């Protein structure tokens, strides 16, 4: 049995990690992601798999998860944003971000008042929403990105629809739930970063794959929905199904044309997650035999 298959077998011990394997299976077996990128990742998983530890660890699933996380954290930029390509056309694009991250990484501190309570308050962001930004107020070299070198986006209309549905201009909790952003717990202040037209011109925008989704239980890989809909779909936290469009792009410069809108403060903890129920909603549900098919597919790739 190969190291890769052992890794799969270790992962499938955990109900949460079966969700991750389901994404891997869909992306690899349907070749939703070019196999050369999948191979890149799984060659690294094989290299990192320490048979001595991996086969005997008390928490083999935890060990497998750590191996996968380590590999994905070091994956080459070239393998990012390689899912089905999305043509944006005239669509307006937005990104949801934590306010402290924008304050810390994107704003030039000389342009703004020092916060009197540690971090800026809601009024601060309302003022920026009203007055906008100028290029002189942006931190030199600041980028739109997450922890890794890419950023998640959705359609602006997704956020507008949520605002309308809840009749709330600042529906942070509902946005968190709809977009599956379970790391934003109660108390997080969220911002919408609305991209100017053409901001993504020249950048590949793609539906996410397991490479971006990583070990998050609330990420799901989905097949292309139609000729003109290559968007991914978020995994909702509050309800099964009915996910909203999502995509990824490589890090891009943060400019003054990005409009910041306050989404408000998340009011409650994420709803509890039942991995078995979640798995039932996945387009491809992990089942025995998938490990062999994945190994076979990866090994065939030169």
């Amino acid at each position, binding site marked *: 049995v190969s190291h890769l298959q052992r890794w799969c077998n270790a992962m499938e011990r955990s109900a949460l990690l079966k969700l991750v394997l389901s994404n891997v299976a869909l992306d690899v077996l349907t070749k939703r992601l070019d196999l050369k990128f999948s191979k890149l990742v799984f060659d690294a998983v094989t290299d990192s798999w320490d048979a001595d530890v991996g086969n005997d660890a008390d928490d083999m699933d935890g060990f497998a998860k750590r191996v996968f996380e380590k590999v994905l954290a070091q994956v080459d930029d070239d393998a990012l944003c390689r899912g089905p390509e999305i043509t944006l056309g005239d669509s307006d694009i937005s990104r949801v971000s934590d306010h402290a991250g924008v304050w810390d990484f994107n704003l030039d501190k000389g342009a703004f008042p020092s916060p009197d309570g540690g971090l800026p308050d809601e009024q601060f962001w309302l003022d920026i929403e009203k007055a906008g930004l100028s290029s002189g107020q942006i931190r030199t070299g600041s980028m739109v990105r997450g922890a890794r070198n890419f950023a998640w986006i959705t359609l602006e209309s997704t956020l507008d629809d949520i605002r309308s549905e809840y009749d709330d201009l600042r529906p942070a909790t509902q946005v968190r739930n709809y977009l599956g952003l*379970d790391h934003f*717990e109660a108390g*997080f202040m969220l911002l919408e970063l609305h991209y100017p037209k053409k901001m993504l011109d020249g950048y590949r925008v793609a539906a996410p794959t397991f490479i971006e989704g990583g070990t998050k239980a609330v990420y799901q890989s989905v097949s292309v929905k139609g000729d003109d809909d290559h968007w991914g779909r978020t995994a909702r936290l509050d309800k099964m199904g009915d996910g909203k469009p999502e995509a990824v792009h490589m890090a891009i410069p943060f400019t003054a044309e990005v409009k910041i809108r306050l989404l408000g403060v998340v009011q409650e903890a994420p709803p509890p997650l039942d991995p078995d129920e979640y798995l039932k909603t996945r387009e491809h549900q992990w089942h025995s035999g998938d490990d062999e098919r994945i190994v076979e597919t990866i090994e065939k790739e030169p």
Partner: protein
Amino acid sequence: VVEIEGRRMRNLRVAASLTDIAWADAFLTACREQRLPGFDIPSEAVMLSEIDFLCRETPEDTRASMRAGAAIALDRYNARQYTLEVLRRMASIVSATLASGAVPVLIRHFTALHPYFKEENSPQFNVAIELISALGTFPNNTQVARLLRTLLFEATDSVHFRFAGILTLGVIRNDSATFVPAMNRFCQLRSLGPERFHDRTLMRAIFKAVLPVNVRQAVEKKSGLSEDAKLYVTKWAMDLEVLRNVFAQSEGRSEEMKGSSPLEVGSYAAFRSMYKVTKAERGRVSGFQEKYRQKAVRSRKGGHT
């Protein structure tokens, strides 16, 4: 069923178990490797919010340990061993945890960068801005107040104008009686690059530190406020509705106040005319300003609403 919320509860338990030194190690690792060891934090992008959360939700003794740890970690920073980005991140943590014990070290690191205070394009300059911003979080600290005052009033030739907003706010927060000279100095420096300042957020913070009645006195009387500063302050006082209540009070009690109030009756007209100049300068009228204009017209006709 997996309780995702459990992550934060676990983090709070870890926080309670750490000593000052352990916090210092954790913060230093956070700044070097973008992870807070021992804590379950899903992404470096939210680390500052998580630290802010821990600081707000933990008991006072844990909070004190966090602050002490931030001060120790900052003290351990040295330019030969770590990158400037580590120092920048450390300043953000000191600011987010309100670690006042770190202030002397923060000042030391800031002043060590003084050769770059005017070198706008150097990485050291940008870190100096971040450090002075973090220092501005502690306006009631005597050392900070002295430093900010010196830089604003005595040493502005040796610092870049981009420091002006933080210095002005810090000085006024510490002593609101300096409002007039600080605003004069700010407007002078701001004119060198107005696009480098976010006026709305800056002025809202400054107005929070000064009584509205004092703002009104500064723009109405011979307070020493320069013409530029008068226009600038008036414009933002109107935009941010700082003086609405002050005017409402003086209008409602204009007769009884006559001769006894420090706010002269009729000063609204003076203010209005000053505002007209500002309005012309801006070339646009907001809804709120239009309401003020109509109110002024009614007032001229002899009736208040």
